Structure formats: structure tokens, C-alpha cells
């Protein structure tokens, strides 16, 4: 049975929660909107206010009653407090034996939220899956989330932009709140849903509700659900939308879209972030911070040397297809809870429900989304580097060096996995492991940006940060008993080098081995002594080609894909591909021509990895995260997006 608190007694609820040591956040009126800020007294609440919303429009209006929760949702969401716009992840401490990285912790008293709507509770559950439901967790989010007291308030009036009913996210609260309240006729009906909640309700001056009250609440929620201004109920929406990414509507919406990013930052579930290195003027204090980002910024769509979403069409496609389609494949639920914020706060009033409905009604051939992956739930932060020492530096070419690092104790890795290497205040970059033994780890790095230039300039004895290993490995066991063909371009040989060593060491378990390697010029060939050894050993047929020859070069000239045409390529072989995407595209086309099944081809993808642990969203590749699902993919898993603009 519910307990009934007069709205006039909200003061006591606020005082009680604050006296329990919580920092209480709730709705307040500021700058013409209802925003979430610290509450100190009931007078801070938007008593007697409501909101009117339309695409690109939000206005506050006076109500003709004194309801404290008589509005829907404003520009803020609770993610501002659970997942702040800017937060330090790692701090560097210098001194003693060298740099030490420390993971930052969540500071401050526990949070209490008053006025969480059903859709917002659903949004918090969505963010939980992304931020604390995977193999690595955002430990600061986790700390705040676990201590947070949630007092939900169900909506009994729907706004013109609400569609939580069609997303099964409201208006009835079904998520885990400590207290669920419903405001009716100048009183709040309170229902404790946890021990913490019960301990608060029992200290309030309430009267016992009755079955009539329960029926009134049910009726109000039912009427609210029926009065929603919008729906997003297209049957099989995630797959229908995913199947219509060639729809001309995407180009039309890109004409109107400002790509300003407002929709993503007001969205209560969007979690994509940039991660930046920081340092002060002395260089002594350095660290790394996470900042809210958006799939509409250029930074989010850049990988080194390329912009994978150079136009607004590609960025809008990423937003809508992630939110409504690939989110389901990534996390098992939609990324949309039907709050309508992205519609209200779009300066040009683009309506997600309208666009999604039009796209889903397209006549694209139905393409299934992959089923959500089962992932072990982990506990570690994963973003704190360990200091390691450079033992040896081997120059491979004018801009490529191999660093031999002291292997941290207990460190294990698979062939094809990568580490993040970092220099304080300079950067943190993903580098594949190019070799290892019991005492060492090798990384082969090309100087391209500030961080890699600094890393390639390190001398033996220098220290740098290492975290990892991350990502998937080359599936050597899947190749047992079959021929193996390795096709690599440029520095793509590095992520395969340790796999090649393993293949050679266990050569009798596999069929014939063949390596096709293309470099830009003879001077750009890496691991040349090892290559010569492979050629001379006769245990792996090794073919090297260069795009541009030199006076002394007597070998093959031409791109590596030319070699595929010249050499016999067994149909039953397992193919391992790594190199520039354009090279892999041509190689795949030739393998398809030779009727090699896609399930026998594996390739390593490169996207912009910042956190490397599946939290920042930068390396999304359609339904996949390159950092945790890749970088090595079986081709049939990504065949429908490989080479498609915007992915």
C-alpha cells in the first residue's frame, strides 16, 4: 500500500534526504527551463510550473495548480551528475622511480535524485549497460551509481514530444528506484521499493493510501500513456532502419541538420566521449580527462589520415542507426527511451520519430543485425597505465622503430592484440604487439602524430606507460589442418608478426603457409632480416612486393593485391589480412572472385581508439566496437558494413 505525503510536506522529504548526507539534485527553474540542480528547500522546486514543447521549441508556463512535478523533461538529464561532462580519468605522479599513473576516483557525498521520470530511469539502465555492464567499467560512474538514492516521480501528463510508451520506457516506473512517487491532487503517493527508500518513507508524516488511490494512479498512468504526442512504433524498427541506410531521406535531413551535437548531448543515454591528455605549464602535473563528445563532431569521426564521416549525412546516419538499431546489437536494448529531448532541443526541430519512421518504411532488403554478444562483466578500470622500461630500440625504416619493452609481471596476450602506449601529457595510442618472449614485449611504431613521434624518439632506459592487452586475436586454432595465407600491406605486418612466428613454430599443425607482403618502397620494408630468414627457411612461401622500386630492387613491383592474381590461392585456406583499408578492399574483392568463403577470411580493422575498453564509443564500427569486438574480425561478421560510407 502506498503512503501519501501532502505536497506541502515536501520540505520534510528534502530536509530528511539532505540530513542523511546526500547531495540532493532535483528540478529547479533557471533561464526559462526546468533544469536539474542542487535542491536545498522545497521553494527551489518548479511548483506551479509546466513546460510546453514542440520541435525546436520549449516554453515554461504557469499551471493553474501548485503541482511540484507538473512538467515533463527539460534540457538536462541525470547523466550530467552520474556521468559528468568533464572528468579526470588518470593522474600522473612524478618522482621516485619514475612516473606513476593513478586512477581518479569519484569525489563528494553520495547523490540523491528527486523527480526521476520513468523514461529517465530507463535511460540510467541503458547507461548502466554501456558503462558498467562490460568487461571494463567506468569506476567513477559505478561509485556514484551504486551510492545514488533515486526518488522517481511518475508522469501523469504527457508532453507533446513524449513517446516513452511506444519505447516501453514509461510512463509507469518499472526500473529500480528507491521510492516511486506519483503526484495527484496536491499530494504525493509514495511507494518504497528498497530498504533505503522504506527507511525514508517511514520517517515522513504520511497517511496510508487505499485501493482507491491505487486505482486512481493506474487510471492516470493509463490516460498519460494514451495521450502521448508521438510514437515510434514501426514494427521491427531496428532491423528496418538498418536495412534502409541508402534511403534518400538521409541526404535530405543532412541539408537541414546543423550537426551542432545538441541532440546527442541532451540525450540521456548518449555516452560517447573524447579522451584528452592534459598537462600544466611546468609539465609536472599531467593526466587524462574524459569529455562529452558527439558523433556530429569531426573529432569523433577521424582516424589517422582519414575522416570516416566527412559529411553530415554520415554523421546523422551514425546517430540514428546507433541510437535505434546498432545499440540493440551492442547492448541488448534500444538506445532511445522516448523522452523527446532530441526533438525539443534541436535548433531546427528535426524530429527523430518522423525521420526514423520514414527511413524504416523504405524498401531496402531486410538485413539482420547481429545478436547481442554475451560479454563477461568485469570490474577493472582498464584505463590506468603501468610504467614499463624501454630495453632496446631497433630502427626499421626512416620513420618506423621497434621498441622492445620489459614485459610486466604476469602479462599474457594473444597474437593480434594491442596495447595502449602512453607518454604523460602527450598522448595514449593503440599499438599492436609485434612480438614477445618471456621477458619482453615488442611494439613497432610509425611516427605519424605527436604521440607516436615522441614514442619513436625514446631511447633505451626511458619509461612509458602501458595498458592492455586489448581486443581480439588471430584465430590460429581455426586454421589447424588448413593452408594459411597471410596478406599484409605496409605496417600491417606488425600485428601479424607474432602470429606468423607461432604459425612457423607449429608448422606441422597447419597446411602450407604463404605470406604476401607489400611495402611502399624497398626502404619501407620492415623486419627485413626476419623476412629473409623466412624466405631462406623454405617453411613459408614468402612473396614481397613494393609499390615503387629502386635502382637496386630486383623483386616484385606493384601493389600486394597483384600478387594474389599471380599466385595460386587455395579455396580451403584461412586468410589473414592486415593493412590499409583500401588494400584490404581490393584483396577481399579478389578472394570473393576466387570464391573463398567469407567465413575463412579474417581482417584487422583500424578505428579511432581512445579508451580501448569499450567506454568512449569512438571506435564504433556499426554494431561492433573495434577495441573489444575487434580489431580482428571474421569477414562475414562485418561484410555488410565494410567499405560502406559512414562506417
Amino acid at each position: 500500500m502506498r503512503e501519501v505525503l501532502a505536497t506541502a510536506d515536501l520540505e520534510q522529504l528534502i530536509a530528511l534526504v539532505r540530513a542523511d548526507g546526500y547531495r540532493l539534485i532535483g528540478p529547479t527553474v533557471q533561464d526559462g527551463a526546468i533544469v536539474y540542480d542542487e535542491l536545498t528547500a522545497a521553494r527551489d522546486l518548479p511548483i506551479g510550473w509546466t513546460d510546453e514543447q514542440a520541435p525546436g521549441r520549449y516554453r515554461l508556463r504557469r499551471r493553474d495548480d501548485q503541482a511540484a512535478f507538473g512538467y515533463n523533461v527539460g534540457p538536462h538529464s541525470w547523466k550530467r551528475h552520474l556521468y559528468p561532462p568533464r572528468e579526470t580519468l588518470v593522474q600522473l605522479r612524478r618522482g621516485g622511480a619514475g612516473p606513476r599513473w593513478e586512477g581518479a576516483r569519484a569525489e563528494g557525498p553520495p547523490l540523491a535524485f528527486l523527480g526521476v521520470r520513468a523514461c529517465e530511469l530507463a535511460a540510467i539502465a541503458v547507461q548502466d549497460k554501456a558503462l558498467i555492464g562490460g568487461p571494463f567499467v567506468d569506476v567513477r560512474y559505478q561509485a556514484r551509481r551504486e551510492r545514488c538514492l533515486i526518488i522517481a516521480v511518475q508522469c501523469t501528463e504527457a508532453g507533446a514530444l513524449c513517446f516513452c510508451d511506444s519505447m516501453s520506457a514509461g510512463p509507469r516506473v518499472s526500473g529500480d528506484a528507491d521510492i516511486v512517487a506519483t503526484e495527484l491532487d496536491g499530494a504525493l503517493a509514495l511507494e518504497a521499493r528498497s530498504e533505503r527508500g522504506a527507511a525514508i518513507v517511514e520517517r515522513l508524516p504520511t497517511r496510508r493510501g487505499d485501493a482507491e488511490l491505487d486505482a486512481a494512479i493506474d487510471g492516470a498512468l493509463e490516460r498519460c500513456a494514451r495521450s502521448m504526442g508521438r510514437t515510434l512504433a514501426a514494427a521491427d524498427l531496428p532491423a528496418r532502419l538498418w536495412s534502409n541506410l541508402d534511403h534518400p531521406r538521409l541526404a535530405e535531413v543532412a541539408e537541414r541538420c546543423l550537426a551542432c551535437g545538441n541532440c546527442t548531448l541532451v540525450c540521456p543515454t548518449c555516452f560517447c566521449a573524447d579522451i584528452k591528455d592534459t598537462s600544466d605549464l611546468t609539465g609536472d602535473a599531467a593526466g587524462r580527462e574524459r569529455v562529452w563528445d558527439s558523433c556530429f563532431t569531426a573529432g569523433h569521426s577521424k582516424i589517422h589520415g582519414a575522416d570516416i564521416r566527412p559529411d553530415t549525412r554520415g554523421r546523422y546516419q551514425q546517430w540514428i542507426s546507433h541510437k535505434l538499431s546498432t545499440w540493440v546489437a551492442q547492448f541488448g536494448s534500444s538506445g532511445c527511451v522516448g523522452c523527446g529531448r532530441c526533438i525539443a532541443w534541436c535548433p531546427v526541430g528535426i524530429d527523430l520519430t518522423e525521420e526514423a519512421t520514414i527511413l524504416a518504411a523504405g524498401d531496402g532488403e531486410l538485413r539482420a543485425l547481429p545478436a547481442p554478444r554475451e560479454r563477461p562483466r568485469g570490474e577493472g578500470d582498464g584505463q590506468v597505465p603501468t610504467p614499463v622500461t624501454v630495453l632496446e630500440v631497433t630502427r626499421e625504416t626512416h620513420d618506423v622503430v621497434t621498441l622492445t619493452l620489459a614485459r610486466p609481471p604476469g602479462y599474457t596476450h594473444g597474437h593480434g592484440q594491442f596495447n595502449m602506449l602512453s607518454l604523460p601529457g602527450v598522448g595514449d595510442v593503440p599499438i599492436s604487439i609485434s612480438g614477445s618472449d618471456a621477458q619482453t614485449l615488442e611494439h613497432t611504431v610509425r611516427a605519424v602524430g605527436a604521440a607516436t613521434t615522441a614514442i619513436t624518439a625514446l631511447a633505451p632506459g626511458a619509461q612509458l606507460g602501458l595498458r592492455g592487452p586489448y581486443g581480439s586475436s588471430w584465430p590460429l586454432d581455426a586454421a589447424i589442418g588448413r593452408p594459411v595465407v597471410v596478406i599484409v600491406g605496409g605496417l600491417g605486418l606488425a600485428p601479424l608478426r607474432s602470429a606468423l612466428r607461432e604459425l612457423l613454430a607449429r608448422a606441422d599443425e597447419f597446411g602450407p603457409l604463404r605470406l604476401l607482403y607489400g611495402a611502399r618502397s624497398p626502404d619501407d620494408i620492415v623486419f627485413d632480416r626476419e623476412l629473409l630468414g623466412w624466405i631462406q627457411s623454405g617453411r613459408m612461401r614468402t612473396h614481397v612486393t613494393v609499390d615503387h622500386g629502386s635502382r637496386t630492387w630486383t623483386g616484385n613491383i606493384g601493389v600486394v593485391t597483384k600478387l594474389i592474381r599471380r599466385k595460386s590461392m587455395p579455396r580451403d585456406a584461412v586468410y589473414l589480412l592486415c593493412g590499409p583499408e583500401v588494400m584490404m578492399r581490393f584483396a577481399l574483392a579478389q578472394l570473393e572472385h576466387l570464391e573463398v568463403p567469407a567465413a575463412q577470411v579474417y581482417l584487422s580493422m583500424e578505428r579511432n581508439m581512445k579508451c580501448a575498453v569499450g567506454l568512449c564509443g569512438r571506435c564504433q564500427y556499426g554494431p561492433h566496437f573495434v577495441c573489444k569486438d575487434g580489431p580482428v574480425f571474421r569477414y562475414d561478421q562485418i561484410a555488410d558494413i565494410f567499405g560502406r560510407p559512414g562506417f
Partner: protein
Amino acid sequence: MFKLASCDGCQLTLLDCEDELLAVADAVDIVHFPEASSRLAPDGPFDVVLVEGSVTTPDQLVELRHIRAQTRALVTIGACATAGGIQALRNFADHEAFIRAVYARPEYIQTLATSTPVAAHVPVEYELRGCPIDKRQLLEVISALLVGRTPTIADESVCMECKRRGAVCVVVTSDQACLGPVTHAGCGALCPAYARGCYGCFGPRERPNTAALADALARRGMDRGGLVRTFRLFTGGAPAFRKESERHE
């Protein structure tokens, strides 16, 4: 620190770094800073040069090339140096008429027909936008150059900073004209945070959809003259804003 055609406001931004000024002076040797010291050393070589102001006279062009030749990292600071500044309004008019109207002896005045950004004449390593520049961005560039990092100067919209800051959108709540969606971030959404629209002093962001914004402003009641003036202010000389303003003439 060098200046071309400018008001010195961006140089003042460095002096406004009151809490950090001693640390800056510890970290770098400031050898030429006309706004702060009359002891000048205009001959390099320099590791870093900050250039304020636009190119409006033939002499400035010569000086600029002289600076560039002896500088490793040239950083332009402010709307004048990066977009031509407010004085680029002359680019839309007859500068000879201005000279005749303003000066008693126009024959003594040697000036160019246009006000242009530094990058139109010499290569530039980094640009800091704004009228004036933002102190945090200036400190970020100096700190990053000291340690060898690529400075974080995001080319995203002002809206990104506005939303991170938690400010309420003035377009959506009060139909104000705001250039935030097409303007380069860096100010921390200063004006929207004080409930007024962005007037674009940081110039165009990466891929600004000025046409869609102009359509939206027109729908909210702005006339053609208003659109021309909105896009033609402190950074009206920047190509994206110039073209949009010309579309409504």
C-alpha cells in the same frame, strides 16, 4: 608576441592570465611583447610566435614574412589574425572611399583594399580564434607546445560547450538569434551562458551548415538585412560567413 592591425585585446589576454603568468614566464623566455614591455627584440629565431591582428597594409605583409622566416611555431591569435577581424568589413566596401572620408590627407595613407588573415599569406601552425581569444585555450597551446603534445583546439560547435556547461539554449527557449551551431568552439559558450545568442566571434566551425541556420533564423522572423548583419560581424571575412552573408544581400 607580434601585432598587425588589431586592438591589442588578444595580447591583453596573456596579461590577464594573472594566476598563471608567473608560471608562463618561468616556462618560456618572453623576448618580444610590445603590450607588456618596451624592451623589444623583433629579431629571432623564435620557438613560438603569437601573432595578433590582420594584414591591412603593405608594410605588415613584409613584417609578417620576416617573422615567419625566423619562427618554428607560428600561432595566430584572435578574430583579426584568423579571419580578418571587424576591419574586414572593408572587404565588402570601397576602401578608397573610407580613406577619403576619414583622413584629411588621404595621399599619406598606404593601405590594402582588404583585411586578410595571416594564414592567407604564410603557413600557420595553430590558430586561436575569438574576439578576444580565450585564456584557457592560450594556456593549452603553450602547455602543449612545451611538452610536445598536439594542442586541443576542438573545431566543434559552440553548442557542444553550451550543453556541457549546462546552459539553456536561447534559440529553443526564446527564439534568439544565435550563431552557436555554426561557430567554432573555444569561448566556453560565454554569451549563451548569460542568456544571449552567440555572435560568432570565433568564426566558422568545421563544416558549418550556415544555410540551414539562416533558414531557421528567417523562420523565426529575421529579415534579409538582419541575416547579412548577423553573418557579417567580427568574423564576417571568414569564407563561410562571407558567402552566407552575400547570399542574403
